[in-house]
């Protein structure tokens, strides 16, 4: 099944960077901001839709324990859901993942139900010791290359944050 969302130039650039740097498999959870990227990835055999973000994080951790790389795609509301999996599995066991986290509740997203996680996402990542950087379609190739190096050589998880309008989402 192919989704109804169309993709965008920036989302395709991010997809191409992820694929070029072999960051799959991809564990995806629902997100309107990420929808164009999810659409660009969804026909791949290594793309898996997961029901909850913490489950996606743990599945990705299992793939890394089996010697691979893995990327989790989630909205920051679901990042809240996954904090325990990061804090008690990924970080203390040093299982390096790539997280792509959309930043609901930050400009230009005014939705009140997302404002608290909008404020909390970066401080929580910092508290977990996971470095983060805002993803841009234009710089995606170098950003994903750096993330791959961080994961494979430094064995550290890395987060790439996605502004609400990066892939043309509108409130």
């Amino acid at each position, binding site marked *: 099944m192919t989704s109804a969302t169309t993709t965008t130039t920036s989302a395709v650039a991010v997809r191409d960077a992820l694929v070029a740097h072999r960051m799959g498999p991809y564990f995806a959870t629902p997100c309107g901001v990420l929808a164009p990227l999810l659409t660009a990835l969804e026909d791949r055999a290594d793309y898996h*839709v997961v029901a909850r973000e913490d489950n996606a994080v743990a599945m990705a951790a299992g793939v890394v*324990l089996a*010697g691979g790389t893995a990327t989790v795609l989630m909205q920051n509301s679901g990042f809240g859901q996954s904090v325990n999996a990061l804090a008690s*599995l990924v970080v203390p*066991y040093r*299982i390096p993942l790539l997280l792509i986290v959309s930043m609901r509740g930050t400009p230009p997203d005014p939705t009140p139900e997302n404002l608290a996680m909008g404020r909390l996402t970066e401080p929580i990542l910092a508290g977990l010791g996971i470095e983060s950087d805002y993803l841009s379609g234009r710089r995606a190739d170098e950003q994903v290359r750096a993330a791959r190096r961080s994961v494979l050589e430094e*064995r550290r998880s890395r987060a790439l944050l996605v502004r609400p309008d990066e892939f043309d989402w509108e409130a």
Partner: protein
Amino acid sequence: MTVPSDKSVRPDEPFDEPLDEPFDKSAAIAEVLACAPGVPTVFTTGFASRVAAALDDRPNHFYMTGSMGLALSVGTGVAMGSGRTTVVVDGDGSLLMNPATLLAVGADPDLPIVHVVLDDGVYASTGGQPTPGRRADLGGLAAASGYRTVREATTRPALRAALCSALAADSAVFIRCPVQPDAAPPGGRVTPDLPGVAARFAGSVTGGSRFPAPPE
């Protein structure tokens, strides 16, 4: 309690446990260790990990010390990433905390996962409070999520037979074991060297060093 050997047992192997030995959590875990030596095995947090580490601390063991409810998700990822049969030793409390974890297996039911749920009806490691699963049908949840094979093993010989058949299957198998809580708590906590647990397990799964020890 029989100390498990490194040699896998056969389903028809004579069973040398006295028949009046209780079928408790430790007996079930000892049976998993006897039937699946060398097979990547993820143990849920709480007493399951501590019992397994105390019985025999093997490189193919991954001990969860936190992340209650996520043992099956980790095992699913290991099976996906390695293509190897992977055993998950779960508990009723863990599964009830996160039954959504069943859906990922149901979405990909040909993954070689042997999911053993030790159902003692209590949160053993937090003081033995009852779980809310008395009326829940855990096997029914697995079947409804998409598992093709759901079994129940109520004795240690039955668990041996179920494990031998599940380890030879090429799709996910769910085995619920109603067990008694252990009479005594297990030995101490598993090692605090969690990066070491991960690196050793990864080395066992990949048969090499594709998961180097992290730099200090």
